[in-house]
Each structure stands twice: as C-alpha cells, then as structure tokens.
C-alpha cells in the first residue's frame, strides 16, 4: 500500500477514535436498535381480547366457548348482549366479538347449520386477519371434537396437518433480528460515510487535501477501508447479540454470513460516498442518507413488511433497494441454512448495485471543487 493511502487511513482511524459520534453510530446504535426491536417489538399475537356473546347458554354453547377459553391465543370476555360487546369493542377493550344467537343450539343439528357471527376490528388489518385465522382454526377444532364426541366422523373430508418450517416456534424475533442487521449495516455504511465526507467539505479540509498530489481513488479508498472495518465490527456485535442474547438460530455458516455482509457493506458505503459527492454539508448529507437509504431499508426491504403484499409498483421499486437482497440472504442464512439458490441470485444483485454505486461515485468525484 502506498504511503499516501496509509496516511489517509491512519488519519481516519485517529478521527474515529477522537470523535465519539462515529463510535456511537457504529456500536451504540446497533445496540439500542437491537434491544429495542429484540425486546420491544413483537409481531406475535397471543392473548387477543375476544368478546363472547351467548344469547341462550346451554351445553352446545359451553363446549363451543370452551374452545376459546382454553386457547392461548385468546383472552375471552363474556357479554350478555351484542350491544354491550360492540360498546366494549368501540372502547378498544376487545378486538373481536363472536355472537352465538338464541337459536344456536336448535339450528346446530339442522341441515343448514347454525350461524355464528364474527365481528372484527379491522382498523389494523394485519391483526384482524390473524384473528380471523385463529378463530377459523378454533372453530374447526371444535367441529372435530363435537363430531368425535357424538361418535361421528367429521363431515370434512380434508384435514390440514400444519408443520411450520424454519421458524417453528413462530417467534417474530427470529426474523426481525436478522432483518435488523441489514438496517444497522445501512446506517453504518451509508449514513456514517456520507457524514464524514461532508464534514471534510464543510471544514475546508477537503480543499487542502485535493491540492496535494493525492489521487481521487486514494481519497475514496481512504474512506472505504476504515469504515468497512468499522462496519464489520458493528456486524460482529450485532451477530453476537443475535446469537447469544436473542438466541436466534444460525443454520447457515458464519463465513457465508460475513461474506454476504461484506458485500452489502461495500454497497452501502458506495451509497454513502455517492451521496457525499453531491451533498457537501453534513446536514443535507444526513437527511439524504436517512431518506434515501435508511428508510427504504426499513420499509421496503421486507424486514418488517412483506414485499409480496405491496402494490405492484412498489414491488418494482424495491428492486433497487440493496437492503432487500441482504435481508433475503440474512433471513435464509439464519433460519434455513446455506441455501445457494436464494443466496447466489441475491448476492449477484448486490454485486451489481455495488458496481453501480461505486462507479457513479467514481464518475462524480473529480479532483475539483465544482
């Protein structure tokens, strides 16, 4: 390595050590985000408050409601009439109401069957869909029990035997934490580099730097290498927390995880450098990095929100979000294993994006002030 590049790298490390804000972005932020999302956010639905209105209690209705009392998914509240239950739902005390009408027992054995009313609070459509699914499941269970009790075969010819793969306990943490690593790496890669480059412009040190015989590739490498190492440090911290604090299983191999992360980090650094070649104040660079890289990584990467359920046009947009490919690789590596048919195409997309970002940076950054 030449003397100019080592000089630049040494300078960058000295600055990182002396400036607590870089350390904070690289290590404190992952810590806070992981703790927040690992413990604070859970997409699992358990103990959903459910209102039960039984207009004419009897043996059949008790066996029906018992199915819900016993379920770990529901916490039941009994109401004597529909009006009270609806009021409770309005007040936000319960999320759904099941109404068994007066003629439930009588209609039950009739050929048409007994009507059961389910009222759902659809404000949060995701939760509503989950509740509806759980109610269906409990209802099927009850039908089978009921038939078995009466010594009859279930009338349903097909039975679903559920097996949940990859995340058999259905812990949302298991898929949130790997996705979160992608968000953290975006922050370190793009936000940090954009900020430190803009700082050089703002403080006038870039001008002094450019007048030395240093080449632009040395300036760019002088930023890439230190922040790459810093980012890998942040990654190591996040992976360690994922494995030992949150007990997320790692079914793939660690070296693939680090290789894929290195690739993504280079892409993110490329984004950061590209931003700073345009935005020359820390304020603007920070804003652009947050809106252009962090938020898309958060929302459009499939980290929390499923890409397949997004509108078509948004799905198309997600293809330019580097975090999307990295999230796919991370979730596969942690929960499924070294599945090359997932990893390779996503890695290829990352290589392509990294080339584009770094290439644009190369083209945009000239040894000039304009």
């Amino acid at each position: 390595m030449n003397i100019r590049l080592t000089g630049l790298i040494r300078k960058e490390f000295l600055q990182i050590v002396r400036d607590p804000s870089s350390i904070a972005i690289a290590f404190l932020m992952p810590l806070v985000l992981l703790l927040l999302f690992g413990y604070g956010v859970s997409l699992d639905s358990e103990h959903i408050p459910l209102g039960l209105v039984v207009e004419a209690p009897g043996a059949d209705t008790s066996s029906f409601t018992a199915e819900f009392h016993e379920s770990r998914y529901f916490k039941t509240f009994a109401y004597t009439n529909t009006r009270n239950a609806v009021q409770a739902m309005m007040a936000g005390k319960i999320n759904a109401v099941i109404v068994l009408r007066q003629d439930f027992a009588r209609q039950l054995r009739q050929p048409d069957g007994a009507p059961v009313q389910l009222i759902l609070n659809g404000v949060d459509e995701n939760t509503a869909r989950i509740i509806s699914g759980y109610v269906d499941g409990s209802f099927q269970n009850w039908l089978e029990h009921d038939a078995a009790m009466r010594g009859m075969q279930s009338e349903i010819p097909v039975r679903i035997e559920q097996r949940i793969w990859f995340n058999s306990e259905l812990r949302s943490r298991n898929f949130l934490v790997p996705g979160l690593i992608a968000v953290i790496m975006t922050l370190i890669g793009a936000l940090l580099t954009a900020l430190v480059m803009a700082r050089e412009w703002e403080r006038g040190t870039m001008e002094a730097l450019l007048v030395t015989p240093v080449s632009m590739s040395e300036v760019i490498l002088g930023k890439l290498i230190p922040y790459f190492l810093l980012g890998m440090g942040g990654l190591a911290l996040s992976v360690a927390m994922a494995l030992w604090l949150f007990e997320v299983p790692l079914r793939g191999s660690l070296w693939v995880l680090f290789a894929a992360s290195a690739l993504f980090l280079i892409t993110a650094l490329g984004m950061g450098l590209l931003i700073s070649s345009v935005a020359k104040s820390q304020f603007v660079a920070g804003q652009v990095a947050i809106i252009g890289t962090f938020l898309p990584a958060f929302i459009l990467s499939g980290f929390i929100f499923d890409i397949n359920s997004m509108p078509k046009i948004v799905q198309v947009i997600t293809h330019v979000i580097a975090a999307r490919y990295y999230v796919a690789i991370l979730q596969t590596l942690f929960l499924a294993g070294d599945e090359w048919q997932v990893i390779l195409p996503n890695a290829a997309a990352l290589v392509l994006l990294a080339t584009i970002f770094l290439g644009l940076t190369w083209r945009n950054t000239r040894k000039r002030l304009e």
Partner: protein
Amino acid sequence: MQDTLTSALEASRLSKTFLAGGRRITALENVSFRVRRGVVTGLIGPDAAGKSTLMRLAAGLLIPDSGSIRVAGLDATRQSLEVQSSIGYMPQRFGLYEDLSVQENLDLYADLQNVAIEARPSRFGELLGMAGLAPFVHRLAGKLSGGMKQKLGLACALVRQPSLLLLDEPTVGVDPVSRRELWGIVYRLVKEMGTSVLLSTAYLDEAERCDEVILLHDGHLLDQGSPESLREPMKGRVFAVKAADVSRRTLQASLSREPGVIDALIHGDHVRVVMEGQSPPASRPGMEISPLLPRFEDSFVTLLKGPAAPVHAVTAQGRPVSATAGPVIELENLQRRFGDFLAVKNVSFSVSQGEVFGLLGANGAGKSTTFRMLCGLLSPSAGKLRVAGVDLRHAASKARAKIGYMSQKFSLYGNLSALENLRFFGAAYGLSGKQGSNRIAWALEEFSLSEIRDAVSGDLSLGYKQRLALACALMHEPDILFLDEPTSGVDPLARREFWRRINELAVQGVTVMVTTHFMEEAEYCDRLAIMAAGEILTLGTPSEIKASAKSENPTMEDAFVELIQAKESA
C-alpha cells in the same frame, strides 16, 4: 519559452463564472498577469473580488471558462497533478484536521506529499521551530489559538519545499502580532529558499509589505506593479488637514464636498485628503495643512473612484437625538466568567452621547463578550452596567428598545427580499401602520435601496448587504448603535460610505460603539480601548494611543503590537 520559465505563475485572458441560485455570477473576467519568481506577490482586493477563485484556479481545483493559467510552465487545469506536486497551498480556513494533533497533521500532509521518511525529522524540526509550535506538538489543532492554527496551516503547506506557495487570505481573523510573525516567515522563505509566494488579502495595508501587487476588483484586474510604482502617481496629492474650530467630522464632511477632492478620511486627529492634482485643498483660517506620504489605499481608492465626483450629503436619521446628561454607556468593574474562565476582567469605561467609541482586540480578547453584555444578550457575572440610563441587570428589554445592532455577519434573512427584511425588522421593533411605512420609505430613499427592494437579500453584493443591514438596525431610530466588525472585507469605497453615515449619526447625537480588529477602522473613532485577554490595556484617543508607542511615526498597528508584547513579557 524563456519568458514562461521565469514566471512562477502566468494567467492569460482568464475568465470564470459560477451558477448561483439560477444566476450566472462572474468571478473573473479576462484577467492576465504574471507572478515573478522568488518574490512575494500580493493579490489585493475586497471580498468577492475573485481572489479565492484565482487561487483555486492556480491550484487546479477549478476549471476556467476560458483562458489559461500556467504554474511554472505547466497548465494548472490539464496537468493539475504535476502542478499540485510542486506547489504549497493554504486554503482560507487553513485546512487543518482539528481533532488531530499538531504532529499528526504534519504527518498526514507529509504522507500525502510523499515526503521521504528519512527527511522528516529534520524538516519537521525546522518547520516547528519556524512556526514556534515545537512546545505544542501533541496539542490538538482545534485547541490552538487562531495565530497558531495559521502557522500550523502554513507549516503543513510547506512540508515538502514548494516552488510556489499559494496563501489564500492567511491573515484574516488573526491578531496583528501573529500577522507580523507570518510575514516574517514568508520573507524568510523567499530569502533563504527562493520560494515564490502569491498571497491574497483584503487588508490594503498589507499591500505595502509585498514586492509586487496585483489589484483585483469585481473580477477585473485594476493594476499591477510594485507598491511604490502604484503609489508614485499619488505623490504630492495627499495632505493632512487639521482645524482648530470645527470637529473632525464636520471638517471631513465639508472637505469631501470640495471640488478636486477624491477622498477625505478621518485619520486619528486629522483628516486625510487625496486631491485630484498636486495642489492642496483650499485653506481657510484656522486650518492647518501639511503634506503626507501616500499610502497604498490612496491609490486604490483613486483607481476605483476615477475623477472626483461631488459627494451627496446624507441625512442619516429623521430626528436629532435629545441630549442626555452624563454618560450613555457606563461600565464599572464589569466581569464575566464562563466556568473557570474569566472572559472579561474588571472592565470599566464610559461613553458619552454622540461619541464613536471603539473596542479593538484580537479574537478571544473579550470584545464580543463585552459587547454582548452591553446589548443585554449576556448577563454580567459581576460589576455595574448602565446603558441609556438603564441598569441592564434589571431592565434589559427597556434598554434594548433604544439600541440598534448590526454585526459583521449582517444578520439578514437571506431568502427574504430587501423590502421584506425592512418590514420584518420594523415589525420586530414594534413599528406599525403609518410609522412603519414612513420608516421603510425613509430607509429605501436614504440608503438608495429602492432599485433592489425586491431582490433576494442573500444575492446582493456585500456593499448592498451592509447598507441594508444598517438600515434594518436604524428602523426604530435608536439612541445607541452597536456595530460588530461592520466593514471587514468590504471594499474601501463601501467602507467610506458606511462611515460617512455613521459620522452623520454621531453628529446628530447617536452614540456609536464599534468592535473591530481592523486597525484602519480604529482611526475613525473618537476614543478607543484596546483589549487583550479580557482586560483593557489602554484607553484614549487614536492619537494618544499612537503617541504612547516607542517607534518612530507609529501606526495604530505598531502601537497595538507594542502593547500586546509588553503585556506578554510582563
């Protein structure tokens, strides 16, 4: 070819424009000149003259629109890497990494300049000794004083012996003592190493220290030559005028209206007059006229102004200020501490009505802290402070209604138009309805702002900005005017016009308080106090202060430097 080899830098028909806010701004237009080898060439001009653009073009940081610039025979645009290997460049803010130590900054620039490891210890020793930084090698650059930063920046630019040294406004915001030291270093370089130096500055007095000067104004080359040759045509045209019976301000006002007078400027106890020809201004009884040696500024002003034009009289304020008995500003043992640090130590002085009082000192001397306390923006830690008869510790807002404030940064709203700024400041001071619109009409008329009333103030030239800022500060007809470095960087004509208004205000009874580190501006004051390290070193009229200096025919700067050095050695 021979000719090219002898010049360190050569610009031919150089033009450069910038796009700012959708408008094309001309920074340099058709500029041609040569910089000789082995001498100090000064690039002199006010802010926005095009000095930095020229420096950056020479360093290969900008591409000219047309024309070319060659450094030691190499094209600075096309062969920028070769040029950059042979020059040393210090940008305006010195280009230092503030979170790196003195040694680490030197190491970095030595790495970037490919200085051989073996050669470093002796080179660093030499540079640190020259800059007087040897005891501070492990101090962070951000913790150095302004003067020390400047010298470290210079050391970094010199880490590999350059053949051409480009210094972009190296003396801005630096105290006079450090300025002198920098000039000492520059001259040693030229003498011992034969380095060619191009140095830009807005201080006209620095031109006298250069071997050769290039005068820039509004992107145009005004003149080039040695300071003596530029002063030559002014010989016998500069006079000192004193009058026993009238004040300096009245004398200046009447002299500036006389035919044949190009420039009339208050300078200490006399008025300095530059004439169109060799004859002195018409003498009246009681007037004492003596010839003066021309200064560089005289030639610059003459070049800018062209033939003498009569100056229109100004009526700065609508009403004369009602007379007050006793001092308008009174400080007694004023103190201000920030934590353990005593920024202002036992400062006492008083200013009477209609007086122009200056506070002179380097950055960090305590001027701004004193000033903020006077404006009621900062409360004193101890001592008494009365402004306009009001104790600021108890009724700051009452006093503030009588105060106008204008700072060097021209605290205008850059994205509002001139008129909108006037309206806003009028409203902020509680002017409404007829009174408000009267004052706006007055400001537009008085400061000749009508033609630019709808222009976005951020795009205005420095001179207009300064006028607008002063108009805003005068909207509520204050009794006291505070000026914080009001004319730093503006061209000498704008500075003269500004001070003509200030003088007019003073004549009408407005009390004016100025802070400055600009020695020339100190000469315009009735009395001034020189501050250093939070204390007042001396207080008196400009002539009294100059008379206290030991050197012969001392300038204000000589007196200042002597005082600071005496204080440091004590």
